Structures are given as structure tokens and as C-alpha cells.
């Protein structure tokens, strides 16, 4: 018999992990302007407030624009890096890949400030474009990680078969490799999209008055009367990200099944 202690610990740990998230719907439907217990009653007014908040929807549009652009760019850059690192041996590979992956461990604030100081001294005005530049930087390592596992599970003999049948490197890439790594590309896009949507520090310091959603949320949390609306928004975001992540996981698994490899792990 396995130790039940471990299972109890695991469930307690999950409660710790999910606690803050599970409270969101509670307060989102709570008929009180104060985010505290005891709960007062059921209301949907906070969701209506979300619906009616024009600034919020502008921030959502900005965030969606930035996240779409950044995830496409990061995934494109990720394809180059992941393909190069899985297929070729080249000089200074460790250093080059290290620099590309560095944002995974570097504090956001240091990246944001370093970029900001350079942009300011070049007299480049802050806008959604500068935010996108920063987001691509932090999304790329995640895209590379997702795509590396996709490229690694490629069977090299398929590529060689294409060469033997007279295809060149570019047509082989389009006809054979790309279709096989498409699920990896989709999950890289989704992961980058989610990270970009969630990013705060870079969005805050590289952004202009055109606020992104995370920056807007941070600003609203300073005003206690706006907090319940943010709780409702948070509940909606949780639901949305669960859907997106389930899709990402579905495509990753399908990709692995397609290339015939063994499932060796999850997201990171």
C-alpha cells in the first residue's frame, strides 16, 4: 500500500495552488464592493460592469493586437532557432542559444529597464511597437522550447527520403518538415500568446498611454471600488486561459502521435 500521506500532501498542495484562482468566481458573483468574507449575495453586476467598461475593451484590443503580433514573430524566430539547434552543429552554439534563452531566467524588470534606457537615448517614442519588441524577446525562449521538442521528435529518414526523391532543402522544409511540426508551431503560438497577454512589467514600462490589459488591471487595483469588476474580469480570464491551454496540450499530443514519438513531458 502506498503512503496516503503523500496523496494528502498532494491535494493540500493543489489547494494552495488553486486557492487564489478559485476565489475569483466567488468574489466575481459577490454582491458587495468589498472583497472580503462573509459573502453578501449573488449578483451579475460586476460582469455587466466589465461589459460596459470602454477603457477595458480598448486595453483588451491593444493586448490582443500585441499578443497576436508578438506570438507570430516569436514563433517565427523560434522556428529558426529550434531548427538550427536540433539539426546543425555550429560554432558558439552554446553561447548563441544561451543568449536566446536568457530571458527565461532574467528578471523582467532588468530587461524592461535596459530596453527602456536604450530606446529613450535613441529618442524612440514608446508605443505598442516598443511593447511588441519586448514581448517578442520574452516569448521567443518559450517558443524555442516548444519547437525544439517538435523538431527533435522528427524522424530524420523522412527528410533524407525527400532529398533522395530529388527535393531541395527549401521544398523539403515546406513539404515534409513544416507539416510534421505544425502542431508544435500551433502550441508555440498559443504559449507565446498567453505569455504576452499576461506580461506586466515589460508592458508597463515599454508602453505608452495605450495601455495593455495587464497594465489596466494593475491600475484599477489601486481603487478599491473597481476591484470587484477586476474579479469578474479575472474569472473570465481564467476560463479563457483554461480553454487555450487545453487546446495547446491537445495539439502537442497530436503532434507527438503524428511523428510516432513517445510522449516525454509537458509544457516547459
Amino acid at each position, binding site marked *: 500500500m502506498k503512503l496516503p500521506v503523500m496523496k494528502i500532501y498532494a491535494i493540500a498542495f493543489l489547494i494552495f495552488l488553486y486557492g487564489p484562482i478559485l476565489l475569483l468566481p466567488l468574489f466575481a458573483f459577490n454582491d458587495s464592493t468589498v472583497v*472580503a468574507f462573509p459573502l453578501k449575495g449573488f449578483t451579475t453586476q460586476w460582469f455587466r460592469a466589465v461589459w460596459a467598461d470602454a477603457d477595458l475593451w480598448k486595453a483588451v484590443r491593444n493586448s490582443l493586437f500585441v499578443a497576436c503580433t508578438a506570438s507570430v514573430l516569436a514563433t517565427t524566430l523560434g522556428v529558426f532557432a529550434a531548427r538550427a539547434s536540433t539539426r546543425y552543429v555550429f560554432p558558439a552554439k552554446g553561447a548563441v542559444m544561451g543568449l536566446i534563452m536568457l530571458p527565461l531566467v532574467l528578471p523582467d524588470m532588468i*530587461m524592461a529597464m535596459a530596453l527602456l534606457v536604450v530606446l529613450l537615448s535613441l529618442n524612440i517614442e514608446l508605443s505598442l511597437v516598443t511593447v511588441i519588441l519586448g514581448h517578442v524577446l520574452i516569448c521567443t525562449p518559450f517558443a524555442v522550447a516548444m519547437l525544439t521538442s517538435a523538431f527533435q521528435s522528427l524522424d530524420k529518414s523522412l527528410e533524407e527520403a525527400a532529398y533522395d526523391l530529388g527535393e531541395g532543402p527549401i521544398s523539403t522544409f515546406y513539404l515534409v518538415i513544416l507539416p510534421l511540426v505544425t502542431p508544435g508551431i500551433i502550441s508555440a503560438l498559443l504559449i507565446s500568446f*498567453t505569455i504576452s497577454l499576461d506580461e506586466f512589467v515589460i508592458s508597463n514600462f515599454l508602453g505608452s498611454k495605450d495601455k495593455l490589459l495587464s497594465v489596466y488591471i494593475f491600475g484599477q487595483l489601486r481603487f478599491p471600488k473597481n476591484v470587484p469588476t477586476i474579479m469578474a474580469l*479575472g474569472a473570465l480570464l481564467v476560463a479563457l486561459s483554461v480553454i487555450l491551454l487545453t487546446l495547446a496540450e491537445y495539439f502537442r499530443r497530436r503532434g507527438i502521435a503524428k511523428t510516432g514519438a513517445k510522449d516525454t513531458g*509537458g509544457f516547459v
Partner: protein
Amino acid sequence: MSDGKRGRFWGSDAASGLGLVSPTALYAILLLGAPLAFVLIASFMTDGYLEIIPRFQWCNYFGECASYKTLDGVLTPTQKYRGAWTDPVLFSIMIRSLTVSLLVTFLTVLLAYPMAYFISFNVAPARKGIWLFLITIPFWTSYVIRVFMWNAILGFSGVLNSIFLGIGLIDKPLDMSFTIQAMVVTLAHSFAPFAILPIYVALEKIDRSLLEAGQDLGESRFLTFLRVTLPLSMPGVVAAVLIVFIPTIGDYVTPKLVGGSKFPMIANAIEVLMLKGDNKPLGAAIAVSAMLIVGAISLVFIGLNRRFLRGPQ
């Protein structure tokens, strides 16, 4: 591919690899490498009014400096300030950030290990994926809101106080919000999956027959864990420690929302100095100092654990 062919194509292989990686590499060099180099250089320059004066000095790190302003065409010192390691306030902020992130790292890895162990050893192989998925889900939803929710949990009329009052554990609500402890718990929560995943990967790699061998040779379960499982999983623990420790020291949101701005950390100090304070060289010196501190501690930590990191012989 035959060996002869591989030899002949070696040059072009390296070239196509470099060519292929170059867009991504250039992007990282231009938008990460160059700005970081700029910060390093700026930290040795002189502070001017809304500008950085290219004049070398050490005093942004140690000693006393002056900010300058051009008055009637002459560069005049306006305000004195002390370097990052000399100024008592800045130094205490660095010490606080370091203490908080060491505490967070210790707590997170300590809590994550049993969880990773549970998934690797106690969960049926077919269900491991679901468990890992369950752990990552909460962390892809708004970071700012997640951090803020800890106020609702630890606050005066928060969840914990309501529960404790309800079951009669305490008579009056505890004041837990806006404390360093609240910041530590919040950060430990934020980084939990980043600690679980590397430890899990390391545990998965352990050959299960080694554990049976340990027990066949008369070791108890606990001693087998201590002498076989734990040392073999150390590479994962080291990775978890670094992945939690390095970003935590630069966290910006938690000191603002959960610390109530009463306990600023390095990132908050950098923000104030770089923007409102208009002292970019000093801000840069703090950023560089922070990177040096985490770099040095990480290297020492890796060095202390190098006998575990050598891999199978």
C-alpha cells in the same frame, strides 16, 4: 549519411546552422545583449539632468557621487548621492531582496519536492500528464490578479482570518497582509510550478532498479531515499533553486501589491531611480549589482553541488 559525406559537408553544415539561427540570434543581440551592455556601461557613467554624461566613475557602486546639470553652459554639480553599496537605504533594499528571494527559494523547493516525488513515484504513468497539466493551469492566468488575490486571502477580513475565526482558532483577526511573510508566501506560490517541473524530470530519470537494489541490500525506505533517490535527483533540485532564485530577486509586482510598497525590493528601487529619480547611472549600478549577486550565488551553489551534477559515469 556516410562518414565521408559528413566530413565533406562539415563546413557547410556549420554555415547553414549559423545562417539559420542568425535572425533569432541577431534579435537577441540587438534587443537583449546590446541593452544589457549599455546598462553595464551606463553604471560607470556620470548622472546629468535627463541625460547620461559619458565620464567614467566608480562611485555609482562605492563612495559618493554628484549629479550634474548644465547651468549657463557650465557643468555644475547639483546634488550629492551615495553609491549602491555605500548608501544605507539602497544596501538594505539589496539585503532585503536577497533575504526574501533566499527564503522564497528555500520554501518553494522544500514544498515542491514532495509534490514532484508524488507525481513521479505514486501516480500511475498514464495519469502523470494530467497531474503536470493540473499544476501548470493556474499559472497561465493573469499574474497581477493572482498576486493581488493573496491580499484577499491574508487580509484583515480575508479567507484565512474568516476560517480561523469560524473554527475558533483565534479570537480576533490576525494582521497578515502587507508583511514580508505575505510577500514570501505570494512569491512561493508564483514560482511553485517552476520548481516542481525540473525536480520531477530529474526523478523520472532515476532507474527504479537502483531503489530496489537499495532495499534488497537491507536499507530502509527512508535510507534508500536519502542515499539513492535524493542524490540522484539533485540536478533537478539545483535547476529548481536557480529557476526560482534568479527571477524572484527582481520581482516588481509582489512588493507593490502584497507588500503595500512598504518593503520595496531591487526592481522597485530600479524603477524609482531610473524614472522619477532621474539617476540612470545609479539605477544601472543597482541592476548590475543585482545580476552580480544572483550570478555569484548561483555559481557558488552550482559549485557546491557539482558532485551531483556530473551525471552517470
